[in-house]
């Protein structure tokens, strides 16, 4: 009786397992298949060899991703710490206020930044009105990074905040009793204890930064192509699926290596915390 009911229960997972094999596992194999074949379906290495020409774009994407992640961390940590010092009601309001913009479509928010930063945009119109020379902001690497920080920084705040807010107050008080000043409490106690939050924040910012497209097209004026833009072009304009697949494959491996590296800093079990 009990045996059969647990068999039934396990069978509940069957439809999902089928779905998972067809729509999660098989598509990843498809990426590999397309990367190693030509348009006629014959085995070839030419898509992999062609990657050589995209090395610069890969390096730029990783570089921008690293800068975005570092800036996000520098902005997010003090923010998470500052709000965690206040009442619970204040904390939840602040987190809500931080997340509300994320519910808006990211395309329209990025487009709005374009209007703020462009040569005839809001900042430059204001500068001209009070008699200053306009500043060139749009179509610079700075604008691209600003767009990425804007879109992904909240994903750094959330995990850091959730670690800091669960920290035992007594530890901080103990540190103060033992003679730590405010700065030392942060560097010696709060910072080391929030490492798990920082690690998942880094992954949550770095992965979308490296793979983003659109932001660089709108705020960089097409001058600073990233991996995402290159993949998008292969699939939506040049229709070279094989080359697109090989670039995607490399991006996937890159992210995998990066996540495996980050995972060495934390010891999560298989069903580790859910994001957001």
């Amino acid at each position, binding site marked *: 009786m009990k045996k059969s009911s647990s068999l039934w229960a396990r069978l509940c*997972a069957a439809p*999902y397992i089928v779905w998972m094999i067809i729509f999660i596992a098989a598509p990843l194999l498809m990426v590999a298949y397309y990367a190693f074949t030509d348009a006629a379906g014959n085995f070839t290495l030419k898509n992999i060899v062609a990657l050589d020409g995209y090395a610069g774009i890969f390096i730029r994407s990783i570089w921008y991703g690293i800068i975005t992640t570092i800036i996000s961390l520098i902005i997010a940590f003090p923010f998470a710490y500052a709000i965690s010092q206040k009442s619970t009601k204040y904390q939840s309001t602040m987190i809500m206020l931080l997340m509300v*913009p994320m519910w808006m479509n990211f395309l329209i928010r990025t487009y709005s930044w374009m209007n703020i930063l462009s040569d005839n945009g809001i900042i430059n119109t204001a500068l001209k009105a009070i008699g200053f020379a306009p500043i060139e902001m749009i179509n610079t690497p700075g604008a691209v990074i600003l767009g990425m920080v804007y879109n992904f920084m909240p994903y750094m705040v959330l995990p850091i905040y959730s670690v800091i807010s669960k920290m035992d107050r007594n530890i901080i008080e103990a540190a103060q009793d033992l003679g730590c000043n405010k700065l030392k409490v942060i560097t010696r106690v709060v910072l080391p204890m929030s490492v798990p939050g920082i690690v998942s924040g880094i992954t949550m910012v770095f992965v979308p930064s490296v793979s983003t497209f659109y932001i660089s097209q709108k705020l960089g004026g097409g001058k600073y192509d990233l991996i995402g833009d290159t993949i998008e072009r292969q699939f939506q304009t040049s229709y070279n*699926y094989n080359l697109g697949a090989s670039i995607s494959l490399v*991006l996937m491996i890159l*992210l995998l290596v990066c996540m495996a590296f980050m995972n060495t800093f934390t010891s999560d079990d298989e069903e580790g915390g859910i994001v957001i």
Partner: protein
Amino acid sequence: MKTINKLYTALILIFMYAPIAVLILFSFNESNSTSVFSGFSLKWYIELFNDGETLKALYNTLILAVLSSVIATILGTAAAVGIDYMKKGPLRSIIMTITNIPMMNADIVTGVSLMLLFVFIATIFGISGILGFGTLLIAHVTFNLPYVILSVLPKLKQLDPHLTEAAQDLGCTPFQAFLKVVIPNILSGVLTGMIMAFTLSLDDFVISYFASGPEFQTLPLRIFSMTKRRVTPDMYALSTLIFVAILILLLLNNLTKKDESGVKGAKK
């Protein structure tokens, strides 16, 4: 120190809300410029309600979000029950690892990989124009599933297995025991998963962009095709309305929470 804290949080919030303030302001602009404000008018809101294609995209987005979140919730909850019963072992860890892939992987790779699968199937069976509502629905269910499974599994873990046994000892069939004991206990996780799936589906652009065809447009796809040219302020008007709707929903949510805590306080 306190003023620095306040100043800093204020600065971050100004940064987060600057583009939103700009788009709300220019949704009321008289001219079609999105950088020079020439006067107050409501004409873009009127324009929006006459823009059939945008309204159709909004409708498509809602249909897709409802369908995909419901399908993902049913499949995902059943999957979580099955996984929970499995013994810890290689099979279970393989399933959990693959389940995590769509959450960890870059959206663009998920989108591209699904597109390649659809294209591959289309070439094998000689189907033309396979990308459309069906493929979009499959894609949305696929990226929603992990979120449902991972919000239901912890609830199942917390559930005392003796409860189900007790129900069966008291005369329930295993199925009845499942309905009357398991489901009520995991309901909050199921609902969290469904809401998360619904909002993810509403907002998704990148995966939809690769998994959809020309004849079925969602709102993010519509916005994308418009930003390729010049965005007219009616998109800003739509975003303003969405923003207001989100604010109202969140405020209502907070108010009801306050009521609950008030009741609990009174009972004490």
